């Protein structure tokens, strides 16, 4: 495993973005950084600025109004970047999939690397999902726009 890859797996910084969810997923996501679950164990840090982040955690069905902002935040993140859809809403639109102001899952707008179903997923389930993402990074599997750091623009 190259040093780069090692470093990437060990230091996934997250940014969290609510795209119209009901807060359920958001509070569970925040609960994952608190003492009981403490995702800093994995080197995960919550970032405020998309420029600093590696992983975008999206909660909620994509409302029409938020779409542009979501895409903008995604663009502002430097490569390599990954997207985690947290909750059923972000996975498929969930209970709101038929509402006319909603796009549906995150993958209708930006590529997603890991889906975490649950309404809301327990913090444990979120950690499990992130572990799955890290697993995927260390293995050969690549999805979404992950180009494994091979296409570094400098």
């Amino acid at each position, binding site marked *: 495993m190259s040093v780069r890859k090692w470093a990437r797996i060990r230091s996934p910084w997250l940014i969290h*973005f609510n795209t119209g969810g*009901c807060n*359920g997923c958001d509070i569970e996501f925040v609960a994952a950084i608190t003492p009981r679950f403490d995702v800093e164990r994995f080197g995960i840090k919550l970032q405020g600025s998309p420029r600093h982040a590696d992983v975008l955690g999206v909660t909620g069905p994509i409302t*029409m109004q938020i779409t*542009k902002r979501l895409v903008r935040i995604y663009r502002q993140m430097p490569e390599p970047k990954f997207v985690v859809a947290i909750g059923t809403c972000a996975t498929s639109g969930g*209970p709101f999939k038929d509402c006319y*102001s909603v796009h549906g899952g995150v993958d209708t707008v930006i590529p997603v690397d890991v889906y975490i179903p649950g*309404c809301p997923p*327990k913090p444990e389930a979120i950690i499990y999902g992130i572990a799955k993402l890290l697993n995927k990074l260390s293995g050969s599997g690549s999805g979404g726009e992950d180009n494994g750091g091979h296409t570094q623009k400098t």
Partner: protein
Amino acid sequence: MSYGSTIKVPFGPQHPALKEPEYFLFEVDGDIVVKVTPRIGYVHRGVEKAFEQETYLHNLYLAERICGICSHAHTTCYTQTVEGLIPLEVPPRAVYIRLIMAELERLHSHSLWVGIAAHEAGFDTLFMYLWRDREMIMDLMEEISGNRVTHAINTIGGVRRDITSEQANKIKKFMDKFEANVKEYMKVLETEQTFLKRTKGVGILKPRDAISLCAVGPTLRASGIKSDVRADDPYLAYGEIPFNVITHDGCDVYARTIVRCEEMIESANIIRYALDHLPEGKIKVPPPRTIAPNESVGRVEAPRGELIHYARSNGTAKPERYKVRAPTLGNLASVCQTLIGAHVADIPMILAGIDPCFSCMDRVVIINKDA
């Protein structure tokens, strides 16, 4: 300190101080806010329209997902409103179980909020402690209902799960522990100078304004107005349980914090009392599938204040109109008022002060043409 003449400072939609995307446009003179224009709608999922498309039972789950923080308040209000349409008598044991869940939810929501307020003030350690202790409540709710956040315990005509006597004992034990911890943190909040400096005298909402701007919940009570739907318009079993309505005369963010802390202690008392007086019997009665034309208003004291639902049935299995007014919309006018004249650095504190949850405010469609 001055950043120049009047400039416009956007706040949101993605901003770390807001857990949810909302947008405020501030006009700032130097360091002082002179004008606020809110632009909500980023979380609009069109739920009110969606209510008209689904059956009453399915709508229960939609109502639950109006908001994840006080999901139980929404389902309680929903069931109360729909049972008012039929009308349906809910068995007393179910009423008590609903009430216990509602108070547990208030505990989780208030401790979440006090944590967020501390975090907003840069007081991360207290945030961590509060959220650590909040896990106790989450565990209880998970054990009773099967999920930490969306409990899905209410159903039209009763509740879906019972509270066993072991669970009741466990709840009582946890309540004692939690109450002791809350008292400890209250002492911290009352004496920590850096926190007091950020909250005392910040975001003043005078009682007169609080009434005329229709503020609700802890925001209203922190301005010294004694109003609580639980006491004024008792639903569930609140009429049978003795409890105090907490008020505070501070009118500032500090007062809102203290009101919420004291309400937590009060909630713990209510839960203990309710568990001791839990009636025996059935936990649900079957509801009819279709509902004759009628109309009904339900009110619930959600953790953030008065929540009001209005339903109108038309004889089918689906409602004709369903209206939700969540507490945050009720408080929006008052928070815009209190923001005027505030320091830029205080904006997050004041906004957090009403415990905003925009997800329940933006009910209806928001659609971007070029989306």
